[in-house]
């Protein structure tokens, strides 16, 4: 993609001093013209600003395979601009915007509109995801090819929120996207085993609470079917928000057979369990549902060993009134962009289970690779685009839902103390977020105004 | 109302078991005298200690007159005007004697007469049970400090107290064999 148009070129020239690149020992990183110009022990050129990164970890900008930005259609819950701001604040430099807007992103025009809204916001690269089926109705293919050929160059297709349940439609979609290297991201939920009533994991808690449950096997059977379809078609399938141990088993088998399947997991499925249902707070209502500890352990293990390739947020903002219903009637979904890095780092990096380099793989390189993004998720190396996030690994902060950049407040992490705080986010060298401040739409923060 | 909590050691005895028995005998005689005999009498004890007192009065009346005076219990909890001041407790049972109270002379029996609020509640409770010809009040102790225009017809003992003091009534039936009336607290 082209360099950003907004802002003065000098703003993108910066020297990041003393950063722990991928968590290793300190180095200086010089950014010029949005590109990494030098790395090493550098002097201070007179014409660039300096950011002190002593003790801070420098990672490639995060890439989210799974974001709901709600625009067009539900601008009361989120807009591309507010979602972009939340993403920048959370260390992201690119997000894939899901297609379940109103109207649905099922045409080239709709995809280009989202792309343009993202460019106008200018804080992250907003990459539209196209619908698999017209209107997400699961009946006929959407204009997948035209979306691929559009300015938005759509490569990821998903009916997310709904499962492509019809095996024949899924097979056709997988076949069709081979022509341009696309991938189908599947929301794996057998609609007969987990119908519209199902509002939480089917297990002891749902039994006690009397809530209609959604059994893990409703995910497992679709993952198993799609893996076989991917093998049959020789195409790529991506499993969105894996939540069960059963899915992990299938994925592990599929990968061992060389089947082209990738998978993502959300921070909330990794960290939050079914016990949170006890208070019937709809902030914890999400699809797929929070799962019990056996599943949580399996998906953590799978993320660590690479069976699950990536972390994705499934950031799903909802207006307050859509969450203030009885639990079974409330909307599914929770915020995630601003907390993803902190939550995953707390859960896996701080206890020493995952290195910063591996976290960069799961939250930046792998998702970029899956989505076919060529200038995101790149190594921190000379000549690479300066999409970077600077992280304070020892900060301690309490999530405050009202401090969110998102327009919505359905934040399941509210009140929790998280470590690893995003200090700064650079999109092609431009500072999009710095110590809690986010650049205005189309602009960048200058270091003068920060000091 | 008497206090259910055991008296502190410093409490001073103002009525012994013998005093209580003598007072009850006198009250029984007064009731008969006032009623010109036992006809139409019904005793209603107010829980908790009014109930054994009513039974004792009935026993004395039986000794004196050789007749069984009907005894019942009247729980006034649900009629109190001070429920909001404390956590609720389960009310006692109200047991109306088989003959009912219509056109009878009901003698309410309680241990201590103080503010008069219990008796006000009892009068309201009686209203819902029937229409007695007359309602009279017999108490073991009248300690004064009335907050309502209520007085007892028959008093075992008038006990001048300060409102800072507490009166503790113990009866053999309800207090593990201990029986006396004591006063504690105040500036003594």
């Amino acid at each position, binding site marked *: 993609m082209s360099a950003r148009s907004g802002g003065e070129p000098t703003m993108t020239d910066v020297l990041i001093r003393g950063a722990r690149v991928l968590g290793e020992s300190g180095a200086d990183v010089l950014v010029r013209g949005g590109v990494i110009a030098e790395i090493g022990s550098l002097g201070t050129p007179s014409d660039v600003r300096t950011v002190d990164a002593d003790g801070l970890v420098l990672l490639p900008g995060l890439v989210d395979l799974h974001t709901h930005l709600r625009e067009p259609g539900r601008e009361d819950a989120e807009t591309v601009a507010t979602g972009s701001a939340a993403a920048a604040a959370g260390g992201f430099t690119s997000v894939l915007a899901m297609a379940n807007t109103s109207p649905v992103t099922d045409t080239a025009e709709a995809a280009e509109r989202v792309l343009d809204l993202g460019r106008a916001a200018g804080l992250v690269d907003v990459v539209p995801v196209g619908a698999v089926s017209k209107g997400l109705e699961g009946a006929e293919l959407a204009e997948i090819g035209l979306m691929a050929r559009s300015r938005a160059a759509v490569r990821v297709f998903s009916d997310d929120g709904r499962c492509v349940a019809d095996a024949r439609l899924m097979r056709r979609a997988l076949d069709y996207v081979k022509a341009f290297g696309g991938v189908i991201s599947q929301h794996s939920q057998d609609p007969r085993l987990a119908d519209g009533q199902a509002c939480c994991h*089917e*297990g*002891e*808690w*749902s*039994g*006690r*609470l*009397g*809530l209609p*449950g959604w*059994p893990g096997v409703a995910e497992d059977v679709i993952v198993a079917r799609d893996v076989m379809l991917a093998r049959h078609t020789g195409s790529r399938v991506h499993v969105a928000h894996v939540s069960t141990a059963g899915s992990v088993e299938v994925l592990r088998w599929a990968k061992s057979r060389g089947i082209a399947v990738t998978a993502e997991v959300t921070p909330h499925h990794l960290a939050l369990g079914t016990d949170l249902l006890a*208070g*019937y*707070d*709809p902030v914890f209502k999400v699809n797929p549902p929070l799962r019990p500890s056996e599943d949580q352990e399996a998906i953590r293990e799978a993320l660590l060993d690479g069976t699950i390739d990536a972390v994705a947020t499934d950031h799903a903002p909802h207006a307050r*009134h*859509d969450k*203030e*219903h*009885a*639990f*079974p*009637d*409330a*909307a599914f979904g929770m915020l995630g962009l601003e907390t993803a890095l902190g939550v995953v780092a707390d859960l896996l990096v701080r206890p020493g289970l995952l290195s910063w380099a591996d976290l960069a793989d799961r939250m930046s390189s792998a998702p970029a690779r899956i989505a076919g993004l060529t200038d995101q998720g790149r190594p921190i190396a000379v000549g690479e685009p300066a999409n970077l996030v600077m992280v304070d690994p020892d900060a301690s902060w309490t999530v405050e839902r009202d401090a969110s950049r998102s327009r919505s407040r359905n934040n399941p992490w509210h009140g929790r103390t998280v470590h690893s705080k995003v200090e700064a986010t650079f999109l092609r060298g431009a500072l999009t977020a710095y110590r809690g401040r986010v650049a205005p739409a189309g602009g960048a923060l200058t270091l003068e105004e920060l000091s | 109302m008497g206090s259910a909590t055991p008296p502190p050691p410093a409490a001073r005895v103002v009525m012994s078991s013998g005093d209580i028995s003598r007072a009850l005998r006198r009250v029984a005689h007064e009731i008969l005298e006032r009623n010109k005999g036992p006809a139409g009498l019904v005793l209603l004890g107010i829980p908790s200690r009014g109930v054994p007192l009513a039974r004792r009065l009935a026993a004395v009346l039986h000794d004196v007159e050789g007749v069984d005076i009907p005894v019942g219990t009247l*729980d006034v909890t*649900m*009629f109190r005007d001070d*429920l*909001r*001041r*404390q*956590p*609720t*407790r*389960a*009310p*006692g*049972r*109200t047991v109306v004697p088989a003959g009912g109270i219509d056109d009878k002379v009901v003698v309410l029996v309680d241990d201590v007469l103080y503010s008069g609020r219990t008796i006000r509640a009892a009068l*309201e409770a009686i*209203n*819902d*049970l029937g229409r007695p010809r007359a309602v009279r009040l017999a108490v073991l102790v009248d300690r004064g400090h009335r907050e309502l225009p209520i007085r007892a017809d028959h008093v075992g003992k008038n006990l001048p107290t300060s409102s800072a003091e507490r009166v503790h009534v113990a009866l053999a039936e309800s207090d593990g064999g201990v029986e006396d009336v004591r006063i504690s607290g105040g500036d003594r």
Partner: protein
Amino acid sequence: MIGKHLLSSADLDREDIETILTTAASMHDVQRREVKKLPTLRGRTVINLFFEDSTRTRSSFEIAGKWMSADTINISAKGSSTSKGESLRDTVKTIAAMSVDALVIRHNASGACRQVSQWVDASVINAGDGTHEHPTQALLDAYTLRHRLGDLTGKHVVIVGDLAHSRVFRSNVITLATLGARVTVVAPPTLMPSGIGAWSARDGFATSWDLDEILYAGDPPDAVMMLRVQKERMSGGFFPTAREYTVGYGLTSERLERLYAVNPQIPILHPGPMNRGLEIAAEAADAGSSAILDQVSAGVAVRMAVLYHLLAGDQGAQS
């Protein structure tokens, strides 16, 4: 201590239940009197907010409130309880803004009462939330059983029917356990709640798919509670036909005879409304030992007791 709300049977410890049942016994006496009204809740406002129809529970709460002299108002909010309509929070905030002391809520969604209790200042009483709980039903069942059996410690109560969708079961299993009863629940596997294995192990009740084994083979039951089976469950594929259900899990006249051979006084309970001929034969419903009408009669007394303990005193004060 009895708190501000009654949302779940788990809100009540043994002492609380004893207190409520003792109070209910006094209220039951009042019910038999000519003048049934008590002045206790004079000036309080109790709103029966029913998002789902229920003639018997609503009228039971209404009579209870009126006999306690509370101003009792029924509001039917049926149809407003969907994701499309006004939010639940807006609905209850609007009603609670009218200086309400208690909201008695029946809702088709599990957990709705607990959610409401976080949004309003009034006491909230759960009159049945979805397939979750129905705590006053469990109290009136306990009242009925105690009247028949005395202390329930060690008594064996068998609950049979559509456990998966039963709020009566969920509340009863808690209240009966709190009172020391031993509970066995019986249903076909498809009508067992999810996770029942771990749940029953943790909470100490037994489960079975075989009604005859539980009724006759081992530990004889001291009481049998039959639950309503909704005919809609058949279309959901939970069981093939009504006939097959009755043969497997109904309290038929044959099963009743076998029970009577051992214990002709055994109380038969059913929360109603009954599907005669499906889960319970007419002979069983109308049997000499049937406690079904006692349950209805206890309903008002128990709800008076609950209203009294939640509303009359200062539940924050220490005795």
